[in-house]
């Protein structure tokens, strides 16, 4: 029987010991003697969040299908166990073998949001791996990062030996082959990293250097060694139907955020909303074949025993065989008494019909994401959702029996005026009014409930808004206050609930999103002040962050509120996600003219992603 890394005394002391024992259904056990490469895959947040991530399940499945590789998992120990491990000197361990992470060949860290950066340091520190890559020795694991935040890896560049840019399915075999070869030959860590850095999609940050202008912007950036590329293009799977997919995903014992079968129906998005990073990074849109998806759904339900299945994509309504897939799932799930959850569907007659079949209308709510309150602002951000469409959708929904509506908006968008902000309250009010006009008194189930939520807009790399100025904390808070006041001034204000996000964390997320290499020092300092789990409001310590910036002599405003000039070299410019800087520039200028761009299926905008030779760019062109 497996021996656990933690003694019973400790496991009985901490909250949810199931986070640390592994042994879950479909987790993979191998014998250390049978493999050549031990890979530890990490999501640097608590187990329940990390286990809900599809990307790790895909890579875990792929790596474990290879006989010479054993991939295990590790997540951030929650603060209670973190404290015990530090006090007792217990090294961080992988869930499957319960062996120390330090003994592994690779530590792969998926980086999904900026506010997890201190947790990366926590993982390294608890593992006993030097925080800075430059200080690591021959015996330390190769620390490799992946995921959306690696599209600007510079703030965390000093902590990683390698970054994998793009989709994980394509290049790991080559990378591991190279590693095995070097291990056999006994060459140094440095030599391996240098060779790895020459592989497509792999970035070895230790061999790159930036110089800066006096004003703090980048003067130059490039490799310090011969043979390394000056530009690194993302890896991408063109045939997603044929790509590996985890038909036996790990089933956790405790309830996690995504406690269901997840069917990824497509990658990419045709819409091109100008604030959205995912919409640019994952271009072009590639759909998974509907027959393949049907087969996956059945197999995955059988292999996991989950009681719910969900579709995953950036915009499910744009999947061309959605009706066929959903009708199949409704039949299949009825037979198996499985629930279907359908996120991110555009509200129209079809989706309302489907939703009324799969959820309890009385209990569920409808979600619209207008993102901005006025049509002018929605044109700026290229969100092709009009007020007319929203109101018509709401009306149909109210007729269908719904009375709860959730609305998502952003505050702090480029060029935002008070009128745009008041538009949030006005739109909420109009929707409420539609309810009272549509549903006669005797049929009403109390008031309708409109929940309007705002988040603060944070400009992200590889979006048309990467040049934009981010609002200050005070501007954010003033705008939230104005929104609140405007909601209270509405006729139907009693039917509208308004929520807004925390501003401090949004400012820092903005710094890290568009930051450069000099931020590594800030991260080290803030970590040494005890910060971890910054994404969790109760642990976020803004003062510690402000102090760390002060100590490093770096100015937050330089990274956030400064509007960049069109010819500025960005820290992430050496990466190529397919979409060109020229296209993004065009979109940025169009946004200033409040001009919308048609989506990929309507008219190609020449973003550059067609160079990958597939996906939506070549639909109907055979």
């Amino acid at each position, binding site marked *: *029987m*497996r021996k*656990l890394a933690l003694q*019973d*005394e400790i*496991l*009985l*002391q901490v909250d949810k*010991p*199931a986070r640390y*024992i*592994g*042994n*879950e*259904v479909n987790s993979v056990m191998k014998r250390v003697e049978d493999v050549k490469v031990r890979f530890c895959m990490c999501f640097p947040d608590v187990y329940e969040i990390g286990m809900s991530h599809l990307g790790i399940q895909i890579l875990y499945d792929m790596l474990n299908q290879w006989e010479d590789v054993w991939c295990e998992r590790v997540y951030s120990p929650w603060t209670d166990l973190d404290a015990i491990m530090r006090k007792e000197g217990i090294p961080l361990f992988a869930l499957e073998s319960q062996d120390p992470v330090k003994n592994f060949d690779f530590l792969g860290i998926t980086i999904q949001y900026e506010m997890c950066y201190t947790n990366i340091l926590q993982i390294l520190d608890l593992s006993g791996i030097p925080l800075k890559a430059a200080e690591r020795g021959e015996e330390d694991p190769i620390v490799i990062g992946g995921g959306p935040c690696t599209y600007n890896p510079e703030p965390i560049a000093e902590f990683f030996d390698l970054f994998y840019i793009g989709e994980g399915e394509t290049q790991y075999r080559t990378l591991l082959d190279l590693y095995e070869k070097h291990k056999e030959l006994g060459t140094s860590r440095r030599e391996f990293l240098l060779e790895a850095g020459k592989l497509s999609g792999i970035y070895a940050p230790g061999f790159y250097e930036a110089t800066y202008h006096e004003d703090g912007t980048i003067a130059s950036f490039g490799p310090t060694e011969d043979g390394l590329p000056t530009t690194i293009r993302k890896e991408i799977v063109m045939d997603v139907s044929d790509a590996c997919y985890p038909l036996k995903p790990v*089933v956790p*014992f*405790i*309830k996690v955020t995504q406690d269901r079968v997840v069917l990824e129906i497509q990658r990419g998005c045709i819409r091109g909303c100008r604030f959205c990073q995912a919409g640019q990074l994952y271009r072009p849109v590639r759909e998974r074949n509907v027959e393949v998806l049907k087969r996956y759904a059945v197999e995955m*339900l*059988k*292999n*996991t*025993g*989950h*009681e719910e299945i969900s579709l995953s994509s950036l915009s499910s309504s744009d999947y061309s065989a959605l009706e066929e897939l959903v009708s199949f799932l409704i039949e299949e799930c009825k037979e*198996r*008494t499985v*629930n279907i959850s359908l996120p991110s569907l555009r509200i129209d007659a079809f989706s309302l019909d489907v939703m009324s079949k799969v959820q*309890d209308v009385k209990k569920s709510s409808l979600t619209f994401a207008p993102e901005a309150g006025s049509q002018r602002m929605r044109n700026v951000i290229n969100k092709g959702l009009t007020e007319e469409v929203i109101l018509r959708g709401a009306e149909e929904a109210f007729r269908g029996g719904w009375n709860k509506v959730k609305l998502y908006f952003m505050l702090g968008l480029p060029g935002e005026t008070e009128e745009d902000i008041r538009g949030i309250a006005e739109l909420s009010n109009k929707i409420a009014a539609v309810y009272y006009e549509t549903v006669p008194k005797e049929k009403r189930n109390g008031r309708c409930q409109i929940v309007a939520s705002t988040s603060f807009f944070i400009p992200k790399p590889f979006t048309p808004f990467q040049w934009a100025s981010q609002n200050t904390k005070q501007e954010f808070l003033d705008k939230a206050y104005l929104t609140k006041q405007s909601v209270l001034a509405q006729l139907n204000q009693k039917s509208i609930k308004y929520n807004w996000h925390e501003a401090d964390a949004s400012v820092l997320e903005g710094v890290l999103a568009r930051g450069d290499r000099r931020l590594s020092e800030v991260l080290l300092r803030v970590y040494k002040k005890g910060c971890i789990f910054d994404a969790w409001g109760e642990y976020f310590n803004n003062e510690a962050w402000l102090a760390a910036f002060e100590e490093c002599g770096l100015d937050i405003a330089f990274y956030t509120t400064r509007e960049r000039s069109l010819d500025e070299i960005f820290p992430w410019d050496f990466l190529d996600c397919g979409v060109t800087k020229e296209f993004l520039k065009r979109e940025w200028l169009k946004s200033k003219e409040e001009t919308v761009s048609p989506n990929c299926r309507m008219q190609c905008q020449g973003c550059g992603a067609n160079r990958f030779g597939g996906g939506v760019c070549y639909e109907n062109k055979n």
Partner: protein
Amino acid sequence: MKIRIKFRKYGSMKFIGHLDIMRYFQKAIRRAEIPIAYSEGFSPHQIMSFAAPLGVGLLSNGEYLDIVCREPLHMNAEEMKAALNHVMVEGIDIVNVCALSEDAGNAMASVAAARYTVVFRKGYEPEFDWKGQLSEFYNQLTIPVIKQTKKSTKELDLKPGIYELFLKETDGQSSIEMLVDASSAGNIKPGLVMEAFCKENGQEELQKAALLITREDTYGDRGTEDIHQFVPLDAFGEAF
């Protein structure tokens, strides 16, 4: 058709709490494709009930759950047991599957008593002569304890609910075995008995991790209120 399933819980699975064990079995039953019956309504759930919740950290050789299956059932007890064992993780074994009569009480209502083995984890043995003092402790006329619940504290006599309590020596290891009331009205946790025992002997604090407790089996009562006749819960079922 009502079916009773008996299982063991051991190893690292002792850290999985009762609610998560329920979720685990709901999913396991789907994986094993057992034709379980569902409740009516908009969100149907599996018809399943567990006998007696087992606390986190405890092992068990005798846990029970009852399910209702749709008929006709195209598998016999052995096949169902094999199908379930095929989808189990290390640390849960199905040891028996049997059919209950239609009028049988559900698992939870049937529970009358449970047998536990308690050992002290290494380094946590009490300082007093616990092996020598055990029978004296049990032979008291009353064993009053203060029971703390979320809402209140109340005084309670454990004695009537402890049906057996003795020292056991196996393979050079000493343990304490007890048979105690496990009914919903009078459930006695073995930890409470051990606390009372230690307190009686001048040891006030019993650390949370001091005891390694195994529930050996869970029993129903075939006797009367005065003369109990405890039998394992699967004795109420039959092979099918």
